[in-house]
């Protein structure tokens, strides 16, 4: 049993367990099995493989699923099924669901701080990060029914047509969570995607897989329909080549790939003219993050003469 400190509270001896919670000394803590999050469910990887996540001292924190190519394929099938329904939800509804994610996360603030600390963050930074992630979700929730107003246009064409351009989501986006900033990195990529009607398969940070899986639970508890965000854990190296060459993914989004990784993704993306979205230099808070994963549709509607 992994214990850190023994505290004395009101004469009852308690342990602090591996996930930071106090448990009576006599009680064996219940460890959590970290699984994937696909289609609103929490399956184990079909491959049966795990990666041992260890802390700085080399002690085992958890066995994390090492997601496979098959997991990715399953995930994309589920994404594709969910995409139209999600995009069709009203902007107001999507805004409320994103806001709901923020509410749920706020309620689990302590859990997320604990887990970040467990994976190596200082508690000061962990607190700051969780707060910032919650606020960022609220920020993007607010854009839901506004970005189309800001970026759409009515085009004064010469003929007798009402011509207008507005935005539609690209569709299925595979998202590579940044290695650093276990919660914020992930949320700053996911929020602008899903608020724009896209659906995502996220590869969790190798450093913070627990936070990603916990975030799946938050999504699951916040009325986000299954398949809108799927979360895989595993090795980035494996995921990158599979996700970039998958023929039913419309775009691939990342923020911290190195030159070699980026090149690999860009080469494979050409297979089906995938959009390659690099947010490494994009402002964290910006409607242009939403716009980056949108297609522009232009319609010529007759107005008669």
């Amino acid at each position, binding site marked *: 049993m992994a214990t850190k400190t023994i505290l004395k509270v009101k004469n009852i001896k308690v342990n602090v367990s591996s996930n930071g919670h106090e448990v009576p000394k006599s009680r064996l803590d219940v460890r959590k099995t970290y699984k994937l999050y696909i289609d609103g469910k929490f399956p184990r990887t079909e491959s049966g493989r795990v990666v041992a996540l260890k802390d700085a001292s080399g002690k085992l924190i958890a066995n994390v699923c090492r997601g496979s190519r098959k997991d990715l394929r399953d995930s994309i099938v589920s994404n594709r099924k969910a995409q139209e329904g999600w995009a069709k939800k009203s902007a107001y509804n999507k805004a409320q669901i994103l806001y709901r994610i923020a509410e749920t996360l706020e309620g689990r603030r302590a859990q997320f701080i604990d887990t970040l600390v467990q994976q190596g963050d200082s508690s000061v930074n962990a607190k700051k990060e969780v707060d910032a992630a919650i606020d960022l979700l609220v920020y993007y929730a607010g854009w839901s029914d506004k970005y189309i107003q800001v970026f759409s246009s009515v085009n004064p064409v010469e003929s007798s047509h009402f*011509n207008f351009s507005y935005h539609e989501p690209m569709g299925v986006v595979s998202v590579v969570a940044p290695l650093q900033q276990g919660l914020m990195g992930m949320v700053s990529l996911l929020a602008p995607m899903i608020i724009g009607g896209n659906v995502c398969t996220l590869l969790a940070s190798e450093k913070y897989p627990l936070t990603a899986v916990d975030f799946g639970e938050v999504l699951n508890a916040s009325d986000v329909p299954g398949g809108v965000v799927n979360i895989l854990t595993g090795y980035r190296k494996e995921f990158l080549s599979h996700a970039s060459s998958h023929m039913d993914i419309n775009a691939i989004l990342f923020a911290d790939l190195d030159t070699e990784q980026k090149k690999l993704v860009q080469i494979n993306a050409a297979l089906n003219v995938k959009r390659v979205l690099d947010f490494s230099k994009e402002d964290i808070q910006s409607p242009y993050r939403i716009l980056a994963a949108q297609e522009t549709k232009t319609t010529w509607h007759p107005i008669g003469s």
Partner: protein
Amino acid sequence: MKKAVKVKPLNFSTSWSYAPAPEGTEHVQLKDRYELFINGKFVAPAGGKYFDTINPATEKKIASVAEAGATDVDKAVKAARQAYDKTWSKMPAAERGKYLYRIARILQEKARELAVIESMDGGKPIRESRDIDVPLAAAHFFYYAGWADKLDYAFPGKRSQPLGVAGQIIPWNFPLLMAAWKIAPALACGNTIVLKPAETTPLTALKLAEILQEADLPPGVVNIITGAGATGAALVNHPGIDKVAFTGSTDVGKLIQKALAGTDKKYTLELGGKAANIIFEDAAIDQAVEGIINGIFFNQGHVCCAGSRLFVQEGVAKEVIRKLKDRISTLIVGDPLDKNTDVGAINSKAQLSKIKTLVNAGIKEGGECWQPDCNVPAKGYWFRPTLFMNVAQSHRIVQEEIFGPVLAIQTFRTLEEVVEKANNTPYGLSGGVWTDKGAKIFNVTGKIKAGVLWANTYNKFDPTSPFGGYKESGMGREGGLHGLMPYVKLS
């Protein structure tokens, strides 16, 4: 039950025929040989190589044109960089705009000459080059001229800056118009340019180079280098460019996307298409038939957004196909310079053989092929307007872009069915919907995954209207406010 009315087929073989009405060519000024336009001057290619550009309607050579090699590409890119650093990026935006206005005006002044050259070099009917290509090219310059000093209003909350040097590669189907689509927004945003026109249709771009000289555009701001695929590859791979804008086939687009992997070059791709043109039972049928004709036979079908897959609702399928055949039988195929011509020459021998290959594949796969028995000239590259019926989703002529006057016809029963069929393609450039109901227009256009949707019309273009595809039809938009985005970086 309604009594079936037997409709007599229309008879067009009357003694009436159109007298030839060729557009004059005496006002056209063409040189025997064209050099590369680099740094404001026409210069000979370093390799000393030239290729012929021929008239596809006569197979006669019009002029020899310089072939740019790697050295020339390098020279052009350096000229563009120097012009960017020293002149264009430092010039007040309003002055940039005034140059664009000037170019627009000269294009209008020389419209007739440009239209004739366009039809000679590319084979398109003079009616189209005169009424569409050239006026739209001028309109594009005029539209983007006004954006040059108003960019702060285009990107809310951001400041825009030019990218630097843009390498632009354009196709042979709308040579001058595509040059305008590429050059106008790039210059308005403050970039400088190296442009490569297609090897079968370089002449109007070279005439445009003369117009740029006449407009006193500072040397190096636009460089125009001619050549084929190797020249284009040298441009794409040149380390001195910041941006690639390509219009052409999906295959080449993918090669370019791959070639740019590992670089910081931005790119926009406007690629192929296989658009669905959907006719509902409640459509105005005669109007729809005109729209189908315009959708597929405009510019001999050499149009990336051509309505090459026709979907007709079952109840009107017979009527539509009958009227379509009647209408096609009246189309005049022949001399592109004749003002009565509806369908001109196929752009090149290579394109003609590609069309034939796919049509033969269509026949082999069991499609029912129909062509009018119109005469075509003995010399030159011609292909009769062609219909295919009884085809399946899996047939090559339904899946592959033919880029010729060939229409594949399928029928459907329900809206859901046709939407699914329309979207069942890797492409997503455009689509058409014909119905009398406004709500149905919004419903269907909302469901088709494509960048441009026409309702009760087809193949309409306007400088204010963004154009570009979903999926494998490319990325980025050209035209309109959204056409500025590919040429700026925001901060």
